[in-house]
């Protein structure tokens, strides 16, 4: 399907995903065989407290082992810096909890390989199939959609989706700065301010196969406040004046 000499790195952030990580990585390798994609897999172990690391060691893929827990943003940036240094031209984030099916990955890569976009976001809301998250979460997502449209003028329907692929131009930007905590909606503002072309593609997502969401109902207010503030600040920081 996709025949390109350019190499792709799938970054799998992993925090206490001992039950699902092996499955995620083997699906990605399966994709490499079935689609002949030049895809490498890098697992970033964010200082897991379970047996994730020993599971990852046995998988035979590349992995980075963080000595301190940095959170999803810090772990992803570690992977992005790795990819940038090693000269990968495309990176894609695939969560370690198994909610991003590897079979959907070619859809994400297609617009990048065709040069149509700099950032491709896998969205749950464009198509109508698969797992669609809770009502409260969707309400929050609607708010971020509004905020993004206001700040950068681009509409991203699923701004909390972590299923994303970047080209090398984006990779350079995120290896310089990437938000630490709850990075997804803020990164959209960041991309918009850098003038990157974002494209959403409809993907099917599964319910997480294990682990717990980083956003519980208890800290959802903190989440909304933090993300709104950091979106505004990243807008101010990158605003051309």
């Amino acid at each position, binding site marked *: 399907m996709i025949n390109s000499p350019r190499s792709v790195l799938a970054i799998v952030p992993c925090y206490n995903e001992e039950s699902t990580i092996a499955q995620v990585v083997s699906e990605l390798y399966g994709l490499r065989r079935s689609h002949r994609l030049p895809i490498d897999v890098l697992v*970033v172990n964010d200082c897991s407290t379970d047996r994730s690391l020993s599971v990852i060691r046995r998988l035979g893929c*590349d*992995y*980075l*082992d*963080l*000595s*301190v827990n*940095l959170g999803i943003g*810090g772990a992803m*940036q*570690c992977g992005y*810096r*790795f990819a940038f*240094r090693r000269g990968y031209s495309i990176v894609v984030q695939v969560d370690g909890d198994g909610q991003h099916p590897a079979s959907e990955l070619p859809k994400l890569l297609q617009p990048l390989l065709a040069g149509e976009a700099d950032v491709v976001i896998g969205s749950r809301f464009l198509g109508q199939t698969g797992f669609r998250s809770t009502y409260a979460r969707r309400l929050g997502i609607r708010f971020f959609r509004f905020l993004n449209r206001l700040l950068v003028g681009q509409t991203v329907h699923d701004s909390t989706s972590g299923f994303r692929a970047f080209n090398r131009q984006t990779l350079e930007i995120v290896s310089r700065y990437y938000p*630490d905590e709850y990075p997804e909606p803020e990164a959209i503002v960041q991309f918009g301010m850098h003038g990157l072309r974002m494209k959403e593609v409809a993907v099917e997502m599964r319910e997480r196969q294990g682990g717990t969401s980083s956003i519980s109902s208890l800290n959802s207010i903190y989440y909304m406040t933090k993300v709104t503030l950091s979106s505004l600040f990243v807008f101010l920081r990158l605003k051309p004046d």
Partner: protein
Amino acid sequence: MDIIPLKIQIMSLLGTVSFMYVIVRLIARGKLREEYSVVWIFCTAVLLVFSVWRQGLQYIAALLGVYYAPSLLFLVAIFAIICFLLHLSIVISRLQSQIKDLAHEIAYLKFRSGHEPTAETPEARPPLPGTDPAETETAGTPPSVTS
């Protein structure tokens, strides 16, 4: 206008001097970096001035049109505390970003060394100098009263 009673003056002098002693000790033993100690030394100096110069607070309060002199003290003290807290937040933010960069670098170096066959050695690291938990000192700072 009342002048601060002698008893309180002696107490505040003692408090200030012992506070200064603790700070100097901390710097001398390398527990407090000089750049962060500047503000503490300055604060102690101000406290010391007002402990010695008994009418000073009233004098300045009258000069500024503050009727109740201790409220001027509270105002200045709270403002100084907020400034210092902000300073600490800035320092912490910088440290956090440096730690993140270091963690990334270490992870990358671990990755690279993992590819060389000789690098895999079980580590029994000796504790770094200066991190011995037996050395930890509790910096008890006596409260100093100036009004």
